[in-house]
């Protein structure tokens, strides 16, 4: 087991480095000079002299070769020094720590809400496949999953805040009430996805010969569902990891709609400004979350299903294993 964990940890670290190198390479190669972007921030056609632009580049080390800049950044990041933002000259770590609480609150609350909605809905639908509840929840889930979170957020905002005045227009306007709509916007599509997934797992487990045998022994439907859920724990863990990136990506847009001062907005601004230190630090953070979630999912799967510890070992069909 230790060898497995170490192997997965090394692979996670390499993945992180690869993602950082890719983002750095793409942004460094993309047209757009941070000095020129800073000069254009005022939108007026004032000429900024080449000397002023050169001084800006020297100040922020932009005149160094890209590989050297990347190497320096990675070495510093290993000591939790993420550099200075090209946008405002503040330490990137301070900027991110200011924005992170809002994003974490939003994402964690959305994840919990999605679990609270999605899992029971999926179980209820699975109990009678093809029934009315299954069809309604399926259609609703598909609609929610297909609706861009940006659109969903705007509609909810205009109806509940603008028209009905039940929630504040801006996230800081009413304490917890201000977070209701952003959390709902982020949670609903995730809950829809989760419900379909749970339904599929539970329905197939309930249709399994083992479940039929249980029913023959007089086992109640609650016990059958609990057993089905236990058997689906490994895919649940893997799916939990897969939810993290979609939540992170969704929160970028949701934060904008609801004026939540989070890391999503910070990332979008940093990309537009070609603020590489900030983009890299946020990439490290979000990719880190995803990699850690995937790593934990792997470990949980390995604990629940020892066959997955050795990828080379042939897997027996799920039914047989059960």
């Amino acid at each position, binding site marked *: 087991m230790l060898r497995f964990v170490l192997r997965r940890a090394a692979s996670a670290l390499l993945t992180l480095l690869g993602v950082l190198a890719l983002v750095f390479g793409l942004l460094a190669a993309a047209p757009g000079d941070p000095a*020129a972007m800073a000069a254009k921030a005022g939108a007026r*056609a004032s000429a900024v002299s080449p000397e002023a632009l050169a001084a*800006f580049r020297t100040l922020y080390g932009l005149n160094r070769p890209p590989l050297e800049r990347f190497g320096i950044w990675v070495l510093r990041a290993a000591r939790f020094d993420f550099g200075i933002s090209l946008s405002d000259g503040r330490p990137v770590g301070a900027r991110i720590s200011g924005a992170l609480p809002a994003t974490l609150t939003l994402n964690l609350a959305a994840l919990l809400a999605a679990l609270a909605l999605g899992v029971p809905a999926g179980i209820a639908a699975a109990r009678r496949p093809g029934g009315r509840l299954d069809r309604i929840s399926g259609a609703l889930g598909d609609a929610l999953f297909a609706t861009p979170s940006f659109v969903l957020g705007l509609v909810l*905002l*205009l109806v509940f805040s603008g028209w009905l005045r039940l929630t504040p*227009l801006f996230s800081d306007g009413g304490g917890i009430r201000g977070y209701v709509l952003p959390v709902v916007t982020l949670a609903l599509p995730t809950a829809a996805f989760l419900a379909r997934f749970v339904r599929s797992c539970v329905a197939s487990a309930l249709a399994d010969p083992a479940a039929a045998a249980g029913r023959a022994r007089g086992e109640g439907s609650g016990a059958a569902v609990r057993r089905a859920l236990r058997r689906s724990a490994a895919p649940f863990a893997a799916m939990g990891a897969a939810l993290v990136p979609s939540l992170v990506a969704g929160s970028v847009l949701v934060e*904008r709609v609801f004026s939540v001062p989070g890391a999503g907005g910070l990332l979008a601004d940093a990309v*537009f400004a070609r603020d590489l230190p900030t983009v890299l630090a946020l990439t490290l953070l979000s990719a880190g979350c995803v990699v850690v979630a995937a790593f934990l999912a792997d470990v949980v799967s390995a604990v629940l299903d020892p066959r997955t510890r050795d990828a080379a070992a042939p897997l027996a069909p799920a039914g047989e294993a059960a």
Partner: protein
Amino acid sequence: MKRLAVAALLLALAACGVRGKDQTSVIRRRLDGEPKTLNPILATTDAEQIVVALLSRNLLDYDENLNLVPGLAEEVSDSPDHLVFTVRLRPDARWEDGTPVTSADVVFTLNAVMDPKVPALTRRSFFEGLVKAEAVDARTTRVTFKTPSAGRRDAFNLWLLSAAAWKDGDLATHPRNRNPLANGPYRVGSWEPGRTLSLVRNTQYAGPAAPAEQVVFRVVPETAPAFAGLQSGDLDEMRLTFAQKKDVDAKAGTPGAPRAVTFDELSYAYFGWSNRSPLFSDRRVRRALTMLIDRESINRNLYGGLAKLANGPLPPAHWAWNSSITPWPYDPKAAEALLDEAGFRKGPDGIRHRGNLRFAFTFSLGMGSDVQRQMVELAQQSFRKAGIDMQIQPLEWAAFAAKMDAGELEAWAAALNLDPYPDLGVSWHSAQVPPTGLNNASYRNPEVDGLLDRLRSTFDRGEAIRLLGEVQRLVHEDEPVSFLNTPLTKWGVSGRIEGVKTSPYGLFLFWPGASAWRPAAGSRPIS
């Protein structure tokens, strides 16, 4: 028991805080982005500048007609050779801590602007050629330049740093950048990053007290929630789209409803053509392209009539605009004749050719503006009918700007915002062709170059207007880009706000700008 009750009452009052302040004296404004700094010489974005404009007076301010008027300085005079400027501060100018604004602050600010370790990109360009700034006495500063320049006086439209507050540490990362010492009508009260920035009346300000006791800026990046906020009374102002203005107009007269304020700004929209390209090197072709675009119809349908035709490189709101130039008309027949005359004739495929040169090109635009995209699509249809094959290429904004500035684009759509004293040489002098400057169309006309060179040393306003008029005429004749229109700026302002004045420089960057806004007596926000 009585003591407890009094203590509870005091606690309750204290807890009210900002919300407990008399809401009739609070103005609630929108920021479309978080200010990254409030350092007066580093502030560049609109969000930063409109906040600093309430915290700081310039040495010289622009009035609503773009005249330079005394601000912190009661006078800025120059020597007969225009090399030495003498700045005389007002005797009553004070920082919010009660200390006087002195020549030491002026010298400190100018040295900071020119310091290569300070990223004061835009400010530094105004002071290129500065030799030295020296304090003559507590109120007088002498500023010496290497060469004279006609627009130099406008450089003193400059916010100051307090030498005492900013002297220690790195100016780019100084803690004061988020809590600057104010010398204007307001000072920073509190700042909740990403959410609200609250300014309160500066009691040390020497001028008339600000009418509102407090201005609360709220960061609302998206337009739709901001508009809902304007309508509900959560916000007192925001820039409007044409559709939002129609909405505001429809509810005009309803008690408490916002009103629309429109005005001309120093900007215009254009389609750029690389004059280096063999397709666009002939001015007959460029004129023809302009004449194929139905700009009247665009103004009517996409701007709801709230735009004027552009006739050249200065917009109508500018003091030197040449009103005698008639914009090129929409005339497809005459345009096709011009294309024939330039040697581009329709081939069997319906596309024009000149020898082996097919009239086909890529047109780039930065993503973001729906109206601009629609204008480009309308032009594409019109060009197609005239035998011109134009492919549209949307680009991410930073990539688009980088390619445009490098002169790499063949054709593009953009808008230009000008300073009150615009140096037209930046965009139209042949010495400014990329990569050295921002003459993105790579336009070259020796006659225009000569006039622009003369303008740099023309200090008489009347003569400058004459020369600028001639530049506009020549550029219009050459039509290096298709000058399209100057859209009116549309702003929504809460019905309870009085004292709103406009200027070609916008609503906020002239004096008194938004510092004169006052909530109507007895009014209060709806929510």
